[in-house]
């Protein structure tokens, strides 16, 4: 253990530094002048993303508890981009009158939760995974209740912390069973000692259950819609993209690297979970009127599609999962940014409020349409390629019945993704939302998302890079 080993954790250390800098600015700046906090946070996030992308590290530290390689580095970069866009889109909301005295808190808490996710991604044993998971989840629960004078926000916070505590307890109980049978908590040693006997498999199922809560797969999804609706939009988008993406990555990674011997069993579990998740998520999304709730159920359905990629197994499975997550980051954040812009300007969040939006705000309408097309998977945009690769990865392993159900679900999803499009472009409204100008930060964020939606699918280099870093799984 020397200084060189410590620098393996450059990404986490830089994030810690950024959180501390924001904290110092909060302390030393005058009470009513916190203007520089948002540019500072955005700039440091950009810097961290650039440093960790251009200077990747690789190696192991702390007795293999912390591991870093190009695959994990790629996933961290995806999360960096997502957090950057979340920061940009939150500008209008954190600068509102009621939030102005707690601007820095938002960024500090997001930074610390991102540190947790990075440790979770880099974990080499179950203890590190658990610590990262908790460090990622507990701050988000505080953020969900950020608008603490709103009843809905308070309710969202308590629902998130209690359901995540329950899921963590279940996950830990599973880990204690795995420890009992294998005698270790390190990924490598568990992999070597793991035998698919009854107790180990039960432990594995508990682990899948606990991670299923975090990813909001269907039997464990009941908290999702309420928390997404009650939280402020910036927190909702962070929760639906970054938090879910990190959990999905480490879930896939652990299944592939720790439990390959029991793959027959978890593949069956995943088949059932993905079918149920896609179907329930889609069917419930149809009847939602609130845009945040609508996007919550859509994100549940997307998690179901994500599981299909895990069925692809090995290098192909991991590569498509990360690619889908990258596409999902751009797509979902574009949709949330438009919802956030409209909510910041008018406070309206219902789908019926969007009637006639195209007449008054054509640019926002077009961007929301693009994002929804990408979520539905309509060809020229990235969402299509994400789904295509997932489906082909799964079909290459011979899951034709699941593929059939997935295609039916994709068709159902097309229906409800077009509902807001119809509201904006076709429905008439007597008093539509008036024309308004968004701030420059949100415009930049939306711009990044739209460029991502248009280009990630077409430039195959992205997909090839992600496949190449997943080699050896």
């Amino acid at each position, binding site marked *: 253990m020397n200084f060189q080993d410590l620098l393996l954790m450059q990404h986490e250390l830089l994030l810690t530094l950024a959180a501390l800098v924001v904290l110092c600015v909060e302390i030393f700046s005058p009470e009513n002048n916190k203007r520089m906090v948002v540019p500072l946070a955005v700039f440091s996030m950009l810097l961290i993303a650039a440093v960790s992308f251009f200077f990747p590290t690789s190696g192991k530290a702390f007795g293999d508890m912390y591991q870093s390689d190009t695959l994990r580095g790629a996933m961290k970069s995806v999360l960096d981009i997502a957090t950057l866009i979340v920061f940009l889109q939150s500008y209008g909301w954190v600068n509102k009158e009621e939030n102005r005295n707690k601007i820095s808190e938002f960024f500090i808490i997001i930074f610390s939760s991102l540190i947790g996710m990075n440790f979770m991604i880099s974990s080499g044993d179950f*203890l590190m995974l658990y610590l990262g998971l908790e460090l990622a989840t507990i701050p988000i629960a505080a953020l969900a209740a950020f608008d603490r004078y709103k009843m809905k926000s308070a309710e969202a*916070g308590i629902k998130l912390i*209690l359901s995540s505590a*329950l899921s963590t307890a279940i996950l830990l109980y599973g880990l204690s069973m795995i420890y009992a049978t294998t005698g270790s908590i390190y990924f490598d040693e568990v992999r070597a000692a793991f035998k698919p006997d009854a107790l180990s498999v039960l432990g594995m199922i508990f682990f899948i259950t606990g991670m299923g809560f975090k990813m909001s797969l269907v039997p464990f999804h009941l908290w999702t819609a309420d928390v997404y609706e009650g939280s402020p939009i910036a927190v909702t988008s962070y929760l639906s993209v970054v938090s879910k993406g990190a959990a999905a990555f480490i879930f896939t990674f652990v299944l592939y690297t720790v439990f390959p011997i029991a793959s027959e069993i978890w593949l069956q579990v995943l088949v059932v979970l993905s079918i149920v998740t896609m179907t329930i998520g889609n069917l419930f999304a149809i009847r939602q009127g609130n845009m945040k709730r609508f996007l919550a159920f859509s994100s549940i359905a997307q998690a179901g599609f994500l599981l299909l990629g895990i069925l692809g197994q090995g290098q192909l499975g991991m590569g498509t999962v990360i690619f889908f997550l990258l596409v999902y980051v751009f797509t979902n954040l574009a949709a949330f940014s438009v919802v956030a812009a409209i909510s910041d300007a008018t406070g309206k969040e219902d789908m019926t409020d969007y009637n006639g939006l195209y007449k008054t705000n054509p640019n926002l309408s077009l961007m929301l349409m693009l994002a929804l097309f990408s979520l539905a998977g309509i060809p020229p945009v990235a969402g299509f390629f994400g789904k295509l690769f997932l489906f082909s990865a799964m079909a290459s392993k011979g899951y034709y019945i699941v593929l059939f159900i997935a295609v039916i679900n994709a068709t159902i999803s097309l229906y409800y993704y077009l509902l807001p499009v119809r509201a904006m472009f076709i429905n008439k409204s007597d008093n539509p939302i008036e024309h308004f100008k968004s701030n420059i930060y949100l415009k930049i964020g939306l711009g990044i998302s739209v460029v991502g939606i248009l280009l990630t699918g077409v430039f195959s280099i992205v997909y090839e890079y992600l496949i190449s870093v997943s080699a050896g799984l």
Partner: protein
Amino acid sequence: MEHIPLQYFLILSTLMFFIGVAGFIIRRNLITILMSVELMLNSVNINFVAINRYLYPDQMQGHFFSLFIVAIAAAEASVAIALIINIYRRFDTIEVTEVKEMKY
């Protein structure tokens, strides 16, 4: 210590875990729900410590894991209690049946 078989500890921890699960589902008071979660986490602690002591006495992983669980559980409880206080200020109650702004 040696004459208490491992099974006793495991039975105790399993009972504790499922009492916790039942409490989480049945109870209507937010503080009691939080206590149920703590019960579940403590049953995991018993599991780790007992398994480590009886099955793998030459290493320490289980002991340290349970120490970390205790610390994290404290952090989690502090945030949860802060949120419960916030709920009490907004709703004037901590009964979950009353906290129903969002449904369906």
